[in-house]
C-alpha cells in the first residue's frame, strides 16, 4: 500500500525527522486559507499515487494566496495516470541550497534492508543509478543491530562536507530506519533531502510504501488507506479477497494462482490476443469468490470474451463450477466464455457445468486459443 506524500511526511515527523511545514487541502478555498497562513508564497502539490506529478501539471508554484487557490482549482479533480486528484498538499515555498536522496529498501539479493543515499537528489533515483552509479552509496543493514551510528555518519559525509550537516543527515537516516520497522515499510524515501539557506537539513518530500502483509497487525497504518485514490474495481476485488489488476486488453482472465494467472495472460498474448486483466481467485475454494470475480470482469466494457483457467489443487473444480453457474444466474453474460477446468474434483465440476449448459476443456492451450478467437469474432 502506497502512502500519500502528506501521510509519509506525518510519519517522518512522528519519528523525529525535521520536515518543513505543509498541510492538506481538499478545496481551493482551503488551499487559499493555508497559503495565507504560510505567508502567500507556496507550492501546491497533487496527492496521488503516481510518479511524474510535476510533468503532468500536478505541482504548481504560487506567489500569492489567490494564485494558490487557482492552482488548487486546476489540480483538484485532474487525472494523473488514470487517478483523480482529491487532495493537494500546500507548503511554503522553501529556499533550497542542495538536494539529496535518502532511501531504505529491503534488498532481495542480500535479504537485508539497505540504506541508499546520493548527493544527486530531487530526481528519479533509478535514473541516477543507471547513468551515474558512482553517485550512489549503499549500506546493507544487519537487522539485529540496526543502522549503526558510524555507518550512518559515513553516508552523512557522502552527502555533506560540513560535519554538522553530516551529523544531521546521519540522525535522519537512523530515524528513517526506525520508522521503516515501526510502520512496516517495504520502501521509505526522502527525495529530496534538502539543505536550506540557513544550513539546516530537512526532509522536503517523502514516499513510503507499506508491505500489505503488515496491515493486519497495524490498524493505524491500514487506516491511512485512501480508497478514493485507487481504481474502484481493484478496491472491490480486494474486499472480495481477490487479486485483480486491470490491463488494456480484451480477453478477461480468471485463474487460480498467481503464476498460472501470469502464464495465462502471456499465453493469451502468444495466441494473438491481449489480456484485459490479471485475476487470481486464490487457493481457497469459495464459489462466492468466483461470483465476485465474474462480476468484476464483466464490468469492464473492453472484455470481449472470458477465459477461466483452473488447475485444481486446494481449489476444487466443483466449487469453481458452482460459482460460475451461480454468477451467470445472477447476471447473464453478454460475451462468450471459455472454461478450462482440470485437477481436484474435475469430473464433478464438469458435470455441474454441463447441467447448466456450459462445456469445459482440459487443455490450457486449446482454451486460450478458443477464447482469443471468440473475443476477436465478437470484436469484428
Amino acid at each position, binding site marked *: 500500500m502506497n502512502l500519500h506524500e502528506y501521510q509519509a511526511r506525518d510519519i517522518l515527523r512522528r519519528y523525529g525527522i525535521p520536515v518543513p511545514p505543509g498541510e492538506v487541502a481538499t478545496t481551493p478555498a482551503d488551499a487559499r486559507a493555508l497559503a495565507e497562513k504560510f505567508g502567500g508564497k507556496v507550492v501546491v502539490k497533487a496527492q496521488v499515487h503516481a510518479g511524474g506529478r510535476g510533468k503532468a501539471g500536478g505541482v504548481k508554484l504560487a506567489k500569492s494566496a489567490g494564485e494558490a487557490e487557482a492552482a488548487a482549482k486546476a489540480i483538484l479533480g485532474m487525472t494523473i495516470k488514470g487517478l483523480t486528484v482529491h487532495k493537494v498538499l500546500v507548503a511554503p515555498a522553501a529556499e533550497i541550497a542542495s538536494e539529496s536522496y535518502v532511501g531504505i529498501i529491503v534488498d532481495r539479493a542480500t*535479504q537485508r534492508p539497505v540504506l541508499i543515499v546520493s548527493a544527486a537528489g530531487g530526481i528519479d533515483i533509478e535514473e541516477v543509478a543507471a547513468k551515474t552509479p558512482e553517485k550512489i552509496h549503499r549500506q546493507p543493514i544487519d537487522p539485529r543491530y540496526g543502522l549503526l551510528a558510524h555507518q550512518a555518519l559515513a553516508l552523512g559525509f557522502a552527502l555533506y562536507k560540513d560535519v554538522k550537516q553530516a551529523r544531521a543527515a546521519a540522525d535522519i537516516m537512523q530515524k528513517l530506519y526506525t520508522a521503516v520497522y515501526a510502520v512496516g515499510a517495504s520502501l521509505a524515501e526522502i527525495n529530496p533531502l534538502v539543505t536550506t539557506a540557513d544550513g539546516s537539513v530537512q526532509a522536503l518530500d517523502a514516499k513510503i510504501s507499506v508491505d500489505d502483509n503488515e496491515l493486519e497487525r497495524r490498524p493505524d497504518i491500514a487506516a491511512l488507506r485512501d480508497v478514493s485514490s485507487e481504481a474502484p474495481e481493484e478496491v472491490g476485488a480486494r474486499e472480495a479477497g481477490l487479486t485483480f489488476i486491470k*490491463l488494456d486488453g480484451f480477453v478477461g482472465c480468471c485463474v487460480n494462482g498467481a*503464476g498460472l494467472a*501470469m*502464464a495465462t*495472460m502471456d499465453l493469451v498474448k502468444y495466441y494473438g490476443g491481449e489480456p484485459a486483466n490479471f485475476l487470481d481467485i486464490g487457493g481457497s475454494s469459495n464459489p462466492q469468490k468466483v461470483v465476485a470475480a465474474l462480476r468484476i470482469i464483466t464490468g469492464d466494457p473492453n472484455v470481449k470474451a472470458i477465459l477461466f483457467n483452473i488447475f485444481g489443487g486446494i481449489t476444487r473444480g466443483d466449487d469453481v463450477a458452482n460459482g460460475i453457474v451461480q454468477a451467470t444466474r445472477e447476471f447473464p453474460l453478454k460475451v462468450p466464455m471459455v472454461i478450462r477446468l482440470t*485437477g481436484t474434483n474435475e469430473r464433478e465440476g464438469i458435470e455441474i457445468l454441463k447441467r447448466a449448459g456450459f462445456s469445459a476443456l482440459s487443455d490450457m*492451450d486449446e482454451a486460450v486459443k478458443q477464447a482469443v478467437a471468440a473475443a476477436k469474432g465478437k470484436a469484428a
Partner: protein
Amino acid sequence: MSTFIDKATRLVVQGITGRDGSFHSKQMMEYGTQVVAGVTPGKGGQKFENTVPVFNTVAEAVSATRANTSVIYVPAAVASSAIFEAADAGVKLIVCITEGIPVLDMTRVLPFVHERGVRLVGPNCPGLISPGKSKVGIIPGNICKPGPIGVVSRSGTLTYEIVHQLSTHGLGQSTCVGIGGDPLIGTNFIDCLAAFQADAETEAIVMIGEIGGTDEQQAAEFAKREVKKPIVGFIAGQTAPPGRRMGHAGAIISGSSGTAAEKMAAFEKAGIAVMKRPADVVPLLKERM
C-alpha cells in the same frame, strides 16, 4: 537418492489441528510421508487421526519423535514465530507454506535459520514432493510420477500445470520444489540447481521463474558454470505491467528491473532452453535428454 526429502523424512506438522494443516496432514499421510508429530499449543497430549501425537511445542515433538523436518500451516501473524521455533528445536529442514508473512519479519528470520544450518523452503510456497517417496506441503500427489526430472518453481498452480504436462508425456520427476513467491525466501534457484546437479536420480531440470528480482539471472550464471545437466526454463509475467504486484508479493517489476525479457535473455545466454509457453516443456526436454 532424491533432493531435500526422502523416505527418511520424519515430519512434524506445525498447525496440525487447523483447517489447512489437518487437511494436508491427511493427504501427506495417505501419500506415504512419515508424519510423526503435530504441534498446536494447548492441544499437547491429543492424537491427530488417532495416530499422530500432538505436542505443545516443536522442541517436545522433536525430542519425543526424532522429527527432522517441519512443515508450517499456521496463520501469517504467527508464522515467523513458528519458523524461529522450528529452527531452535533442531529440525534440519523447515517448509513454510503460509502466505502473507511481512518481509521485514523475514529479514530477521533468515539470518537465524541460516546460522543454525537449517534449510528453509518458502515461505508462501507449495512445498516439495519426491514422487513415490515423500511429500511435504500441498502439491497434489496424483499429478506427479517418479522419474528423472528435477523441477524448481516460484509458483504453485503453474508448477502443477507443468508437472502435469511432464507426467502425461511419460516424464516423471525426481523432486519438485516450490521455493515460494515472496521477495525473501529461504531456498533459492541456485540452492536447488546445486542439489539437482548433485542428485544421481536427476537427469534434467525444469526451472519455472517469474518477474521480480534477480534470482533467475543469478541462477542462470550459476548454471552456466556449475550445472552439467540440461535445463529448460520458463518465466511467467511477460505481459505484466511494471510497478504492480502480480499476486505474489515478489512478482513485481521495479522500475526497469526484473522483467521477463531480462530473465529469458539471461537463460538463453547461459544455454538454458527457454519455453515460450508451458506446453513447450516436453519437446524441449526430449530434444536435450
